[in-house]
């Protein structure tokens, strides 16, 4: 139990001051924690707060440390572990470029419809698909595109928020 490694999505509300992202990233690299994905953007321009969403993995003790270490950074307002403290919605956006002709091209387009991806750019021999969803869904779609002429992928990383009326 204590050695089991789990994935957690952690939301961190910070003052949007210079260097705050470097502090968070430095904390993870300096202490040897994993970052599976990290997203950041200002979410309240009046209060100058940004929201950082980190997806990380570790044993329960390491996850607890990560949260405590984040919490003690001076510009941090709040740290919420969305994986254990709430029921949450997680989404990621990906732009996926596929090139090919003939059968593969048709197949790629058909798959994109099944995944509800949108075509945001098309040339006679390529598509760029836009897909939103949970990380697993995006992974699955990319997997399917691989034999069909996958060229490159750009992903935003996970944004997450708790379900229900409460704010963090």
């Amino acid at each position, binding site marked *: 139990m*204590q050695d089991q490694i789990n994935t957690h999505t952690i939301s961190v509300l*910070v*003052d949007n001051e*210079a*260097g705050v992202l*470097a*502090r968070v990233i*430095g904390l993870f690299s*300096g202490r040897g924690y994993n970052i599976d994905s990290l997203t950041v953007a200002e979410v309240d321009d009046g209060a100058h707060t940004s929201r950082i969403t980190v997806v990380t993995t570790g044993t329960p*003790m390491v996850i*607890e*440390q990560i949260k*405590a*270490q984040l*919490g*003690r*950074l*001076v*510009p*941090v*307002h709040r740290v919420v572990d969305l994986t254990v403290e709430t029921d949450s919605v997680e989404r990621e956006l990906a732009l996926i470029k596929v090139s090919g002709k003939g059968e593969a091209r048709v197949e790629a387009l058909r798959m994109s419809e099944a995944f509800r991806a949108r075509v945001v750019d098309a040339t006679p021999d390529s598509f760029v698909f836009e897909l939103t969803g949970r990380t697993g869904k995006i992974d699955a779609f990319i997997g399917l595109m691989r034999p069909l002429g996958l060229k490159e992928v750009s992903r935003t990383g996970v944004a997450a928020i708790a379900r229900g009326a409460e704010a963090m």
Partner: protein
Amino acid sequence: MSATMTGAQIVLKALQDQGVEHIFGYPGGAVLPIYDEIFQQDAVEHILVRHEQGATHAAEGYARSTGKPGVVLVTSGPGATNAVTGLTDALMDSIPMVCITGQVATHLIGNDAFQEADTVGITRPCTKHNYLVKSADDLPRILHEAFHVATTGRPGPVVVDIPKDVQFAEAKYMRPTAVKHKTYKPQIKGDIEAIYTAVDLISKAKKPVFYSGGGVINSGPQASQLLREFVKLTGFPITSTLMGLGAFPSADPQWLGMLGMHGTYEANLAMHDCDVMINIGARFDDRITGRLDAFSPNSKKIHIDIDPSSINKNVAVDLPIVGDVAHVLEDMLRVWKSRAVEPDKKALTDWWAEIETWRRRKCLAYRKDDKAIKPQYAVERLYELTKGPNTYITTEVGQHQMWAAQYYRFEEPNRWMTSGGLGTMGYGIPAAVGVQVAHPDALVIDIAGEASVLMTMQEISTAVQYRLPVKIFILNNEYMGMVRQWQELLHGGRYSSSYSEALPDFVKLAEAYGATGIRAEKPDELDDAIRKMIKTKGPVIFDCIVTKEENCFPMIPSGAAHNDMLLADDQGLDIEVSDAGKVMV
């Protein structure tokens, strides 16, 4: 509308309003406006060190011996990078410090300008917090915030990096009271439910032990008083980390001595065998726990700490209480008294009887020698001849530091300054300088090693300049003794680069600085030489020639369990250290 001031004037005004009386620093191009303001006022005295590392350790000594923050002022580039060791030291040992660094002008930042360094980048991982001040308008707030962050919660170093143009720019000043922090709010009071549970657990303990640490010192003299009261009330044994020495008087029969790698037999066995451990402001450092899976396997652990990240970091605890030691102990004592709790007397008697059998091992006994001075003997004599409430001890890092911890004894907090977490050789002389600045009439002694002192020896010049009568008591074994001991233990006695070759003549060196040099080579001349040192008005370098290959015992080899301790009488060192143990520092 109030008048404006220059950034440099704001710095001095803020220091004065923060009650700062002394700063330790070294000038340079990027801080000249601030030095110009220092020149034109008397409230803040500047102590000119000889190396910026010295400024940081002096500030640490100042802070640890007073409870006030230590303040440092250095220039950009090399001034700031030289301060990095002391900042890291202060971070590891939770020492409140504000370090002001000069920076190149804002428009030059990022251009590899002369003496530019990314100071906030470099110091981010070695400070509690740091700031780059981009506008003089932010300067008053940031300076007051820096003091607030450095001194509250778990104390630590804070860097304020001020570009030169900001030092010249005009802005309005703001008093400290106007500063409120949006996000930084350390938890001071402990959760009362947890305190009830703790009292319950403590009252039912059959083999309890208090394990106190540097957090008690950080919390202030009141915390030491409350700790003493609680320990007396319960009748429990108490041990402390290196950083907590002095919080509980060593003369008290309930005192077991220091615990950990070089702690006493009785303290470590009590920790190993206890059923309830009460950790007060200590952080389960690896010097304490040894092999984690064998650390105090059968105890319920209570942990009082102001920093949530100290809890469950190395050791899983049963009952965490986040809060300030003094506040939590105050509540705990109140609950204890109001419930008229009685500890289990019968069980305690048995527990003490067991502890007495461990004490009878006399783990700190060593073979006396009447021809050569044993280092343990030197510290014992130094203690006997210098003890008292007005004596302050600093140390360097190595065997002498451990012997100082074992054989010098402390009755009061804030009298013991040592680099514990980072283990910085060269800490002791500048720290002594800082302590002496804060306590001009005190007897301040650095118990030192001959290798360590050479790292910051130049600060003797500072001591001479400011008439600071610090005493540098060198246990000169002509070895980096601690390194040699590990080489003897783990590397087949191959003393690779651990011999102190080509040492200076410390007596002549003292004289060259304008200080006094004293040497003692024989046990029968030691006492007189120490007395002479005490009587000498100015700084002294005391070269105490000790036996060369003495080992520091007891010792728990790294990677071993607490009940796997080496004592002085198994001098043979024929133990097997596991590969996992060898990997550890």
